[in-house]
């Protein structure tokens, strides 16, 4: 936001002239007032090459804001820089981006996003700077209550958030993905196809691939395709080749680095959580089992697992993980430095103690089961690697006042996780290669050569849905960076890659159909596009002002024009979560937003209505129709 220095200087000049004329008091009273000037807002988005959709939302909003008399600076920055601006430095007015989670999520995700206790922390915790007691209370209530009581709290919470608009939900996109089915099948179409779970569900087409270790017979039907042909391509038959426009995974593998993670798909395969969400249920993952021993405690038993460097995964690692996420300095810095990702989840665990090598007791006070299970969905990290990264971050040995730790700023080269994939190599900005972890519990078979494994209790995969058994179906996973969604779609259409990871714009869709083996898979993603407001800054700190901005967004037009129908307009951030949205916030059959309807005038913006709404809430315009704000 800028100030008109020239106007002030002119005023000072007049003041001087007037003062010499002898009417100092009155002139001082005028000159002492800060002049009003046009409101300037910076709107941040990523360029079309990174994401073809977000910039279009930003463009519409820019046009409408300009029309009502606001000076808008439409600023495009790279994805890392955008999140650095928004999440780390909180130095923004407005931004357009997607939410982090792609799978339908529990309402408790809003806790991290909107609770005022996180207002001073950098990261995905309350980036908007919302401080509303009513929201805080409802967030706490939905953690504590269960059943219909919780449903009511969740409904009230959504209504409160929709009314306050710390961010405006625009639409839930269809995760358009070009896939090549000659080598791998089973691309899921009911949600985001390239997700951690989606990649694990794939089946190899060829028989000699790795997928036959324990898979359930899905291979046999597909093996009639030209498997030998596919394998002759590059000598590594069971390599899954993905293409993306997002180069961050080629240079940073830190699961808690907020500005480098988009949806955390690949770090989610490098690092195992204790519990993974599978559809509507939570399934034990690195945990063999978990049990609420009383109202305050959850006992988690671990599977037999090893880190990628061969060390065993122990209860101490799990205990370390929770203590570390709470304070990545582990007490070595005066003020705690909490993790910039998974903060809402990790805030559930108040204490942790290893009972023995394989059992850990987590203190999770007074929450319902759904929320308790969410506490177990953080990546477990090895203590022997991360305990060396708890010091304050330095540059060339010098400590600056960054209030951060080595752990947060580390790019985590050569990541050591326990997940089904392990890191092989990477060329920054170009590609990254992962390989299947042959030691992972998913590929360890219960029967077969293990003589003592006949008992069900010893099944290393107990509780894991069978479609993940023996997975992943590929030996290697190669992710290549390409300059745009069009080149990514072309690459798949030409058979050079198996699937696209990053977003495709609707213009890429016609390119996918050109080759017979290629098709478009799209499942609705829960990663909603939204306009985020910095509620720390005036006038965005005013919920009534944010509500008017929300009414400048024509969500239906965005879905029709920008997404060409490959999205669903929404009001609530929980619109993808089953049965969560109260009817007052539902879009079914509606033309426009039920809470903040677009200022519609036959398909275009009703500028006068928007200005009248702004006047009603106390804003003023000059003769040229510019919205005035106090110069800051």
């Amino acid at each position, binding site marked *: 936001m800028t100030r008109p220095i020239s106007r002030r200087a002119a005023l000072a000049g007049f003041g001087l002239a007037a003062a010499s004329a002898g009417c100092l008091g009155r002139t001082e009273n005028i000159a002492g007032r800060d002049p009003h000037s046009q409101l300037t807002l910076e709107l941040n988005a990523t360029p079309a090459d990174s994401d073809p959709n977000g910039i279009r939302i930003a463009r*519409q909003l820019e046009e409408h804001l300009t029309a009502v008399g606001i000076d808008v600076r*439409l600023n*495009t920055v790279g994805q890392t*820089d955008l999140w650095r601006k928004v999440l780390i430095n909180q130095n923004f007015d407005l931004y357009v981006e997607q939410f982090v989670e792609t799978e339908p999520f529990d309402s408790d995700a809003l806790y991290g996003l909107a609770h005022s206790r996180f207002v001073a922390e950098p990261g995905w915790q309350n980036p908007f700077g919302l401080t509303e007691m009513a929201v805080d209370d409802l967030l706490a209530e939905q953690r504590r209550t269960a059943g219909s009581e919780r449903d009511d709290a969740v409904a009230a919470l959504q209504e409160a958030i929709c009314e306050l608009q710390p961010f405006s939900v625009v639409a839930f996109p269809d995760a358009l993905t070009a896939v090549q089915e000659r080598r791998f099948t089973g691309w899921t179409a009911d949600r985001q196809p390239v997700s951690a779970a989606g990649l694990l569900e794939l089946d190899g087409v060829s028989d000699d691939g790795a997928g036959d270790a324990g898979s359930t017979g899905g291979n046999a039907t597909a093996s009639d395709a030209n498997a030998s042909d596919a394998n002759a391509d590059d000598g590594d038959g069971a390599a899954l080749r993905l293409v993306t426009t997002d180069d961050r995974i080629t240079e940073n593998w830190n699961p808690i680095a907020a500005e480098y993670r988009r949806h955390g798909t690949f770090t989610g395969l490098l690092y195992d959580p204790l519990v993974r969400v599978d559809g509507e249920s939570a399934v034990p993952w690195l945990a063999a089992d978990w049990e609420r021993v009383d109202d305050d405690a959850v006992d988690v038993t671990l599977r037999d697992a090893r880190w990628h460097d061969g060390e065993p995964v122990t209860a101490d690692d799990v205990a370390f993980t929770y203590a570390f996420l709470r304070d990545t300095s582990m007490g070595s810095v005066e003020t705690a430095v909490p993790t910039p990702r998974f903060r809402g989840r990790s805030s559930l665990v108040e204490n942790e103690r290893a009972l023995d090598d394989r059992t850990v007791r987590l203190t999770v006070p007074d929450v319902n089961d759904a929320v308790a299970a969410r506490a177990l969905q953080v990546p477990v990290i090895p203590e022997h690697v991360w305990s060396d990264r708890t010091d304050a971050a330095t540059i060339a040995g010098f400590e600056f006042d960054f209030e951060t730790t080595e752990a947060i700023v580390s790019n985590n080269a050569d990541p050591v996780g326990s997940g089904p994939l392990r890191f092989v190599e990477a060329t920054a900005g170009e590609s990254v290669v992962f390989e299947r972890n042959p030691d992972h519990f998913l590929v360890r078979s219960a029967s077969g050569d293990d003589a003592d494994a006949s008992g069900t209790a010893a099944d290393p995969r107990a509780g894991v849905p069978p479609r993940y058994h023996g997975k992943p179906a590929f030996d290697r996973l190669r992710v290549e960076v390409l*300059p745009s969604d069009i080149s990514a779609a*072309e*690459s798949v259409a030409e058979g050079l890659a198996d699937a696209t990871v990053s977003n495709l714009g609707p213009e890429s869709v016609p390119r996918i159909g050109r080759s017979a083996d290629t098709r478009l898979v799209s499942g609705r993603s829960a990663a909603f596009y939204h306009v985020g407001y910095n509620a720390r800054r005036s006038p965005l700190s005013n919920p009534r002002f944010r509500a008017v901005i929300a009414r400048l967004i024509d969500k239906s037009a965005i879905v029709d024009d920008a997404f060409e129908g490959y999205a669903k307009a929404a009001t609530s951030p929980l619109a993808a979560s089953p049965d969560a949205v109260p009817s007052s916030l539902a879009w079914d059959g509606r033309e426009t937003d039920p809470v903040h309807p677009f200022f519609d005038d036959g398909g275009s913006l009703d500028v006068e209505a928007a200005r009248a709404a702004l006047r009603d809430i106390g804003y003023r315009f000059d003769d040229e129709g510019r919205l005035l704000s106090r110069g800051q």
Partner: protein
Amino acid sequence: MTPFLSVLTSVVAWVGLMLVAASVAVIGPVRLREARGGLRGRVWDARRAVAVLCVVLFASVVGRSSLQAVSELFGLQATAFIYGLEGGFVAWVQATFATPALTAYFSWVYVYGYAFLLAFPVIASLALPRTVTLRRVLVAYALNYAIGLALYTAIFAHGPRNVMPDMVTPLLFATRPEVMALTSEVNVNSNVFPSLHTSLAVTVGTFAVLTREEYPRWTPVAVTLSLSVVVATMYLGIHWLTDVVAGVALALGSVALAHRFVEPRDD
């Protein structure tokens, strides 16, 4: 063959053919034959200019990724300013003039015509008995690259196709997606200010006008091609008008500086 290699091969083949044709038509067989004598001496004479250009190109290849990181962190974020300055000019250009034939022409010019335009003056000035033009051309190229790289680092901005995809079609990449493999190898999408396509093309055009007495046939060809490149940068949605204006200024400045630095020799 990867898309990058196949498009590179095609560019090399096309430009090679055009260079042979232009050498015969513009320089002429007689002068070409004469030029072979003393070629080594002239190259030796221009060694310092060659070295300067090589150093700049080498620095650009080696340092580009770290300069890009510096630009992202500390560069002036200028997209909003440029967009605010000129608004939808490029969108208007596309909306008013775009036809499939023109798109094909400008796409060709942007890649093939441009490469030929830059390569031919080196051959043509090498065929001249005196090396002053050659040295000035090489120094002007080096100045364009060096100043361009410094400005790319200082100013971080995206082009119109990245900012207004609803109004500006990335015509080049939509019609010839394989070209993107090539351009992304030599540039990134946040290097738009100034337009180096414009500045180098205008540099060549200016030299063609200045040396029109040596190669009268080259002048109209070079001027036409260089103006086409200038228009192509905007027509294809890659550059802003602001980038183009800055590119023209950079070109004229580089040519002037090259004349100032490089004096004719008496021999």
